[in-house]
């Protein structure tokens, strides 16, 4: 038990350290943009007709705390960020947490759903591919997994849109129907959301699925020839019971470890898929912030939140793995 607590503590410390490093990178990116918030506020006032002097800009800097040293501002930003407060965007003059709130949750929900979707397909299909000697099935799966790489999600999204527009006259875009767009969350809105969400979930999960099938298949093929499987078979265990109780249990543990990287891959596709399907969530906000308004505060917050979710997932999977496999607990504290 003590060992487990120590393991958890080390992992948590590592996760926080990673987040600190990430926050430093993100904060530096925000700071490197020419022109700080004070200049932007003042520039805005200038367009309203006020006469501005350099003294005004300096005063504004002091008011916003921009005259403090770099490290101090970074620490303050991180401290607030861990509490979920990312300050105000100086271009939109809105609180970033309010702006992001629901939209980030939608993005995270879509991505996690895509992850679940990917493994719900990949695990049975991968196991089947490893077991079956059917050449047609195996070649088909190879083709699918190659296409998963060669046909990136956004091309897939484009092609699906092309077909649905040409043959069904519907573009399948957006996340909500018109009447629900600005409504508060309710059961009806949720159902409507699900009706629209299946396509982004499928597209986001597509290449993750292709990769996952390959991984499951490889892990399963390694495990299936081992002696303990033959031994179990000799004892009279067979069929699905044999597969699930013996090789699958061992083969699938490493997959838990790779979940974080799969989420990373899905996040990579998020902005582009959002752009194509005109989704109103964090991915499209990120594009708006970077490609249109050059709003680094907003972009930084989104990148930090995305990375934060990955680090959290990695932490959770580490703990899960340690609960399942006592060897992992020991190995980390060499």
């Amino acid at each position: 038990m003590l060992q487990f607590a120590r393991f958890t503590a080390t992992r948590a410390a590592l996760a926080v350290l990673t987040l600190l490093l990430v926050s430093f990178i993100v904060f530096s990116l925000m700071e490197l943009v020419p022109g700080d918030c004070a200049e932007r506020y003042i520039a805005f006032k200038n367009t309203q007709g006020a006469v501005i002097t350099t003294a005004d800009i300096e005063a504004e800097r002091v008011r916003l705390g921009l005259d403090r040293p770099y490290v101090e501002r970074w620490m303050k930003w991180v401290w607030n960020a861990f509490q979920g407060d990312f300050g105000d965007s100086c271009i939109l003059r809105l609180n970033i947490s309010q702006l992001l709130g629901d939209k980030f949750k939608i993005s995270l929900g879509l991505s996690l759903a895509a992850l679940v979707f990917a493994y719900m397909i990949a695990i049975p299909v991968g196991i089947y591919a490893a077991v079956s000697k059917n050449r047609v099935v195996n070649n088909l799966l190879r083709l699918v997994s190659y296409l998963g790489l060669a046909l990136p999600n956004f091309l897939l999204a484009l092609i699906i849109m092309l077909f649905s527009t040409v043959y069904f006259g519907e573009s399948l875009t957006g996340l909500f129907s018109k009447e629900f767009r600005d409504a508060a969350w309710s059961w009806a809105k949720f159902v409507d959301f699900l009706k629209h969400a299946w396509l982004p979930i499928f597209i986001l999960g597509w290449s993750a699925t292709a990769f996952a099938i390959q991984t499951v298949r490889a892990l399963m093929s390694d495990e299936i020839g081992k002696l303990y499987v033959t031994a179990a078979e000799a004892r009279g265990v067979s069929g699905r019971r044999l597969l699930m109780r013996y090789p699958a249990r061992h083969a699938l543990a490493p997959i838990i470890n790779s979940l974080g990287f799969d989420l990373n891959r899905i996040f990579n596709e998020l902005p582009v898929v959002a752009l194509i399907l005109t989704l109103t969530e964090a991915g499209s906000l990120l594009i708006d912030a970077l490609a249109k308004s050059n709003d680094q505060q907003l972009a930084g917050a989104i990148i930090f939140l995305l990375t934060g979710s990955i680090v959290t997932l990695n932490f959770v999977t580490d703990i899960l793995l340690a609960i399942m496999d006592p060897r992992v607990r020991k190995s980390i504290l060499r």
Partner: protein
Amino acid sequence: MSKRKAAPTAAEQKAREAYFTASQRQLIWQRFKKNKSALIGAWVLIVLILSGIFSPFLTPYDPTIAGRDKEYMNGPPEIPRFCDENGCSLRPFIYTTVRERSIQTNFRWVTEVKTGLEDRRYLQFFVEGSEYKLFGMTFNTHLFGVDKGQIHLFGTDSTGKDIFSRTFAAINTSMAVGTIGVFIAFILALIIGGVSGYYGGWIDSVLQMLTDTIRTVPAIPLFMALAAFIPDTWSAEMRFFFISIILGFIGWPTLARRVRTHLLTERNQEYVLAAQLCGASSSHIIRRHLLPSFTSYIIVDLVISFPYMVLSETALSFIGLGLKDPVNSLGVMLQNVTSADVLLNYQWYFIPVIFFIVLVLAFVFVGDGLRDAADPYSDSRK
């Protein structure tokens, strides 16, 4: 198992000796040749790369705005034919199109196809056209063209640029971006992975921590943030190089890790100790003794990471943060295709996508084939 054979013939003996004395590269090539899909992929790749390099010659028009056809905007692909109701011709031809706006067309621009005998445009080879530079020399001969007007095999886009010419120019751009990107990733990986693996200890721990951190940040959002720094005033070439550098940052963490793992196992070998005892410097040992021991693996990794570079560039350009108009790339060409107008009416905008899927697939097949060939245990594992 079987009885030992009698003395092998001279030819057999020679073949066997050739196998044992073959260099690493020859062995890899032997195994690679056996893999049919990889071999086909390699041929496709060579053809595509060559057609990318020679694209100004192979394509009839300038892919930039300078080569636009004012008479044929958003025009569908024109496929040369031999016969029509006016009879056949040995030389394939296309029809003349005219854009006009008058009271009959309700003052809208309408493109009309004229199918008369005198409106045929005959296909010709080695025609003189716009000037282009290849290997520092200026040419103006193009592989094919038509006797009057222009021919657009893949149609044209909304400004009248020839999609066929743009597709091949885009392949060239993608290859160039990918090559520079892979090169930068390679150097970064060698330096960081090399230092980390060779010295080990706390330097290794710190560098690994950094690498892992960078690997946790989703790459595309991070590079979007970097690409947003490019000022609008930069020229297309500057943008091109900056994007290539950014792409270089995508590949290095994975590659650096591989280099490090190899070095960690290799540095305890006796030949390294021997070199150290001879007084060789660290950088000399890394460069002359350690790196050559796994060059082939590095090359394989580079080939495998190539499609990621190409696809990332496409994604960045598609969003509008990557390359911009005078430079052609798939992402640039796809920028406007999400509008319903294009999806419903101008599906030939999607023709370049096919080429890119083929390009990436070819790379994946070659990369997989090379990886299997470079792995001495790949035969026994199957």
